[in-house]
């Protein structure tokens, strides 16, 4: 099964999402406060499910500037989903934040 990269460009209130198959890396950077957060992350979760069929390792790299509480919960759910799809020892999770935030 051929899995494509995913690239969602950043919007006014949504982050840029880059999923790279070659490096097994999912990057989510920017603002995250859309009204329908579930809808936004749906393709991202599908991409994770697909890549997990071909690989058992993943790196998730998150850096948010402004993030709403519903996005915080959705990000947590996304990480829990990642944990259920990949071997725990093969998950690298980077949470980047500004000092004092």
């Amino acid at each position: 099964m051929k899995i494509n990269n995913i690239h969602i460009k950043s919007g006014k209130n949504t982050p840029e999402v880059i999923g790279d198959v070659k490096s097994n890396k999912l990057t989510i950077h920017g603002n995250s406060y859309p009204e329908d957060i579930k809808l936004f992350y749906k393709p991202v979760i599908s991409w994770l499910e697909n890549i997990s069929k071909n690989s058992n390792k993943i790196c998730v790299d998150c850096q948010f500037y402004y993030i709403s509480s519903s996005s915080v919960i959705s990000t947590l759910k996304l990480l829990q989903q990642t944990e259920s799809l990949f071997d725990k020892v093969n998950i690298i999770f980077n949470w980047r934040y500004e000092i004092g935030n």
Partner: protein
Amino acid sequence: MDKEINNVAKVCFSRCSAIKDIYKKNDYSILFSHFGELSVDNMNHIPINTEKAMLVSGDKKATIKRIFNILIEGLQNIRLHGEKDVDGNQVSFVNIAKEELHYKISLGNLINNEYTNTISNRIDEINLADQDGQKRMYVDILTNGEISKKGGAGLGFITMAMKSKNKLNFYIDKVDNSLSCFTLDILIDRK
């Protein structure tokens, strides 16, 4: 029919005006005021324009971020949970004001009367907790929380309280047998 619609807007407008009068009496200048329905564009522009105004005023980055976050939560609360009047209008208001040491943000929307006790009890519970207690409440909801059908996470009030570092002041003005105007009035230190 018109009388009923006017009455809903009238009660909310009275509260909005009363809050602005209090701000002015306390030497606050009004940075932004909106009464009526809140569009998606409003939702995006209000925090961004407030951020720009705060940068011009020389506010600290940390204060700007706190206010931006409060606005995101408050405006999403209005859009996701604000009830509509009999004419289908999601009557709401937003005021942002500042003086030398503080910012004030007031957010008003219609709520169903059956939720007035739940909401006031929830805010009282948050206000009674200290910062550690609020953190525990936040983590508890975060761990067990789900995004509701409306898109809310149940973290809005507690996030606003934690970001403001002050008690959440609120008013509930009964409009009629089914609706009330709910107003949050939030104080944020500029330091």
